[in-house]
């Protein structure tokens, strides 16, 4: 349903006479909070033992330094069936790593973080993902029928309600692009998910060209995480009159010591497919 939602967003900016410009705005400053990026991704066909959790602190909105590492925390993940605990060791740059993690499909895990005298924790289940059948390119589809887009083909499983997260990054681009989808209108079908880059002169963005390398990560995600990341993504770029009102998005991590001082971020366990596509003429 990505295209559907995107179309609705585009529809909201249709007014032909409108113009946009970047302006200076004074914005309020909220409290500094812990940011938990605990994305344990299990690439298909790998052992999944190497895992990293990133901890940082939120900064004022227009601050040029967006990543302020949170060091000195104690981080661990526990398998709730076997009670085996995996300790993530502090790398001193906001990253906490382990190489002994044992992912089990459908297994529930807990995350525990001790930071700055407060204890945070979260629960999540390892969620599977289907295989990518094919990746191909075309120009006809997408918003611009002259620009290249990549198509990712996969079969949505029949039985359950499946949710997907995609992370696209073109080699040489500064930032990845996230897209999320569910199978609400397309359950059990073969899905053709396309990804196109729209030209944006203001931000010096050009569409795909032959030779461009695109890295594609497709993650299986739980429904609560889908609800979370969908809102996060929708609040990323646009707060026009026809988009839902932005709000503070709360993830699944709780501050046990002081609930008021809730953290940002999420504890996620996903199976993942990683592919690379090189565009041709």
């Amino acid at each position: 349903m990505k295209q559907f939602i995107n179309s609705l967003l585009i529809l909201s900016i249709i007014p032909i006479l409108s113009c946009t410009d970047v302006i200076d705005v004074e914005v309020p400053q909220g409290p500094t909070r812990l940011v938990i990026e605990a994305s344990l991704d299990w690439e298909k066909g790998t052992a999944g033992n190497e895992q990293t959790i990133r901890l940082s602190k939120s900064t004022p909105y227009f601050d040029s330094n967006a990543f302020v590492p949170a060091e000195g925390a104690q981080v661990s993940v526990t398998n709730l069936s076997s009670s085996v605990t995996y300790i993530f060791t502090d790398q001193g740059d906001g990253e906490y790593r382990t190489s002994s993690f044992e992912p089990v499909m459908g297994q529930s895990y807990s995350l525990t973080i001790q930071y700055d005298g407060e204890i945070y924790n979260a629960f999540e289940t390892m969620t599977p993902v289907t295989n990518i059948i094919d990746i191909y390119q075309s120009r006809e589809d997408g918003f611009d029928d002259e620009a290249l887009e990549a198509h990712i083909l996969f079969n949505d499983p029949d039985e359950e309600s499946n949710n997907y997260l995609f992370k696209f990054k073109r080699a040489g681009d500064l930032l990845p692009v996230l897209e999320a989808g569910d199978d609400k209108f397309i359950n059990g079908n073969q899905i053709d998910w396309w990804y196109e880059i729209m030209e944006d002169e203001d931000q010096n963005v050009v569409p795909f060209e032959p030779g461009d390398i695109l890295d594609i990560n497709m993650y299986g995600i739980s429904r609560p995480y889908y609800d979370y990341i969908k809102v996060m993504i929708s609040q990323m770029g646009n707060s026009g009159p026809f988009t839902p009102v932005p709000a503070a998005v709360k993830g699944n991590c709780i501050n046990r010591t002081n609930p008021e001082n809730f953290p940002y971020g999420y504890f996620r366990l996903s199976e993942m497919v990683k592919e690379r596509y090189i565009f041709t003429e």
Partner: protein
Amino acid sequence: MKTRLKPTPAYKLGFLWFYFLGCFVVSSQQSRTVSGTITDKSNGETLFGASVYLSGTTIGGTTNEYGFYSITAPEGNYVLHISYLGYHDENITISLTSDIKQDVEISEASTLLEEVVVTGDEPEKAILRKPEMSVAKMNMGTVRQMPVVLGEMDILKSLQMLPGVTNNGEGTGGFHVRGGAQDQNLVLLDEAIIYNTSHMFGFFSVFNADAIKDLKLYKGGIPAQFGGRVSSVLDVRQKDGNSKSFALTGGIGVISSRLAAEGPMFRDKGSFLIAGRRSYIDLFLKAAGEKNSVSFYDLNLKTNYSINPNNKLFLSGYFGRDAFQLGSIFESSYGNATGNLRWNHIFSDRLFSNLSLILSRYDYDLNFQQEDFEWLSSITNLNLKYDFKYYVSDAFKIDFGANGIAYNFDPGQIAPTSDDSIINELQLDRKRALESGLYVSAEQKITSKLSLQYGLRYSYFIRFGGQAITTYENDQPVVYNPTLDIYERGKPTGETYFSKSETIETYGNLEPRVSLAFLASRQSSVKASFSRMAQYIHLLSNTSSVTPLDVWTPSGPFIKPQLSDQYSLGYFHDFNDEAYSLEVEGYFKTVDNRIDYIDGSELIGQNTIETEILNGEMRAYGLELLLRKNEGDLTGWVAYTLSKSEQRTPGGNAGGPGINGGEWYNAFFDRTHDISVSGSYRLNDRWSFGSSLVFQTGRPVTYPIGQYTYEGRSFTSYSDRNSDRLPAYHRIDFSVNYKPNRSENKRLKGEWILSIYNLYNRKNAASISFGQNLETGANEATRTAIFGIVPSITYNFKF
């Protein structure tokens, strides 16, 4: 306060007021009645709100929507005095020795000057004696004098120049009245409900000025004959069509053109009007090789037929459509369609009646060409309505009637348009409901200084079966998760199927309406009013502005009817023999059961809306000031509104603190200050000028309070809902109206209108969005401004 009554008490109520009527009939036997219709001499249009008095007495009144009046006075000889703004006064000597019928034709005061102007409205002056208050009226002539964007006269934009009426920013449709939401306005075109009032996302209104006779916006003190919305009633009436001679009017503009034809019909026993408009921006876009396009058209029809002096039939219709196309990806069309068949029947010279059968429909169709599927949604209603006006005596008039609206909601159906489509077929539950109303309203002169209008409406709503209703664990469609401090969808436990003959839920409400006017001096009066209103259908929208694709939903087991109470108090003063008038009004309004949306709510294709919403409340209060100059070469007004509109949604049955922590927050359409100045100046018979100025506090928005890095991107954390504001909105518009020299005997009469919107090219922010620059990775704020300076030229003609 909800009172749930069975039908029986309503019937009893009915008997009560018929009994009531009887008493008054008896008390006025010695009098005689003069009644008739007031029409425009040049085109035969009936005039609504013309004042008809017996000279030298205080006996008289105003004409109703169909131009009918009825005056009862003791036997004797009188002079019937008719006055109406923009028309010559008319005096007719009558001998009231028996009940008589007296139709009167009055002629425009300056036919040479105002030929192109369609007149036909109540004097725009504070009418001191009438208990009616909080009413915004606009003369169609005034609408035409005002500068507008892209040269298309727009009654909705003109109304927004009056106090208490705002929009939700440029490029969004609809309007807001006294801090009420857009779906809380009842918009009627020839009595038919209009669900979407704008074309092209608010650039134009659906009302073609060539086809409109008059309009009246009730902001408060709403008479009992209206019901169904909690904020306001906009009553727009189409012209009947020229019954004297055939006429063509039209206009050619930059973006759109219009043409209307009208003339007598049925051997002078009736007339017709047909008016159409079409935009051609799409043709330009196509010619320029642009793949995206947007267009609209609409059609107004009306015809009437007099069977005899006591029976008249009217048939009117409207059909409008918007279309837009986004390359080869997607196309969409949406619009209103209405039809109304009316029968005016005069039972006696004191009892006027109108029976209407009205159909309204709004639908949209999205076609996703790339994904090969179609999305359809519609709301349709059929309304049967019978209204009576009984002129009991000079001091006492009664309106009463009943109506029933049968609704059909089709919130959405998805259909694949080819075998290759990856989309599955889906039909959201269709919903059916009946909204009925019964009312009586009296207007009474208590003393020569005090007049009262009081009435009662009883509304009853039935949500019919024909669908399944989901049941939830603990009866909670939304559940508060205390650990994560978020609202989640409840756990469905099953479904209960209701057959078409079953009732899912019913609601009944008594809606009292009272207003009074006290004439404090010859120039001034004080008025006060109270009205309670119930609203049974709701527009689902979790965005700050509603879109044409939002869906209406009826009240039911999870959504209760909205109930509003509004109190207003006003002071009205005429200066210099009515050359100037001042209106000051204050109001306080509360609305119960206003639905609000949980964070992350998903309304698109949502079959169980109840899992996305919580029940909240609204409150609004404000002070409105309107100073008008009604006469002379320079006319116009200054309007100022100071107001506050807020919303609050506690957790209620779902538990937890509620949306935005259960705190009051600014409604999206809250405007602290709203100043509008509008003026028009007539230099001579050929040249006239119009100008308007608008200043408004910026729209409430939610700003970022911080950023953080997650999954390689910078994400934003936001402040409390609507706790910040966009920069103030202001602009000045200007127009020049030129009427070339016209000889008396030339049939074609034209005028040129040059208008400039946003004269000093201010980039008013319609929105400010925050995001990460893809090239630099830094956060930035991007302002979207819809209209810079927009000059336009229009040629209007009449033949």
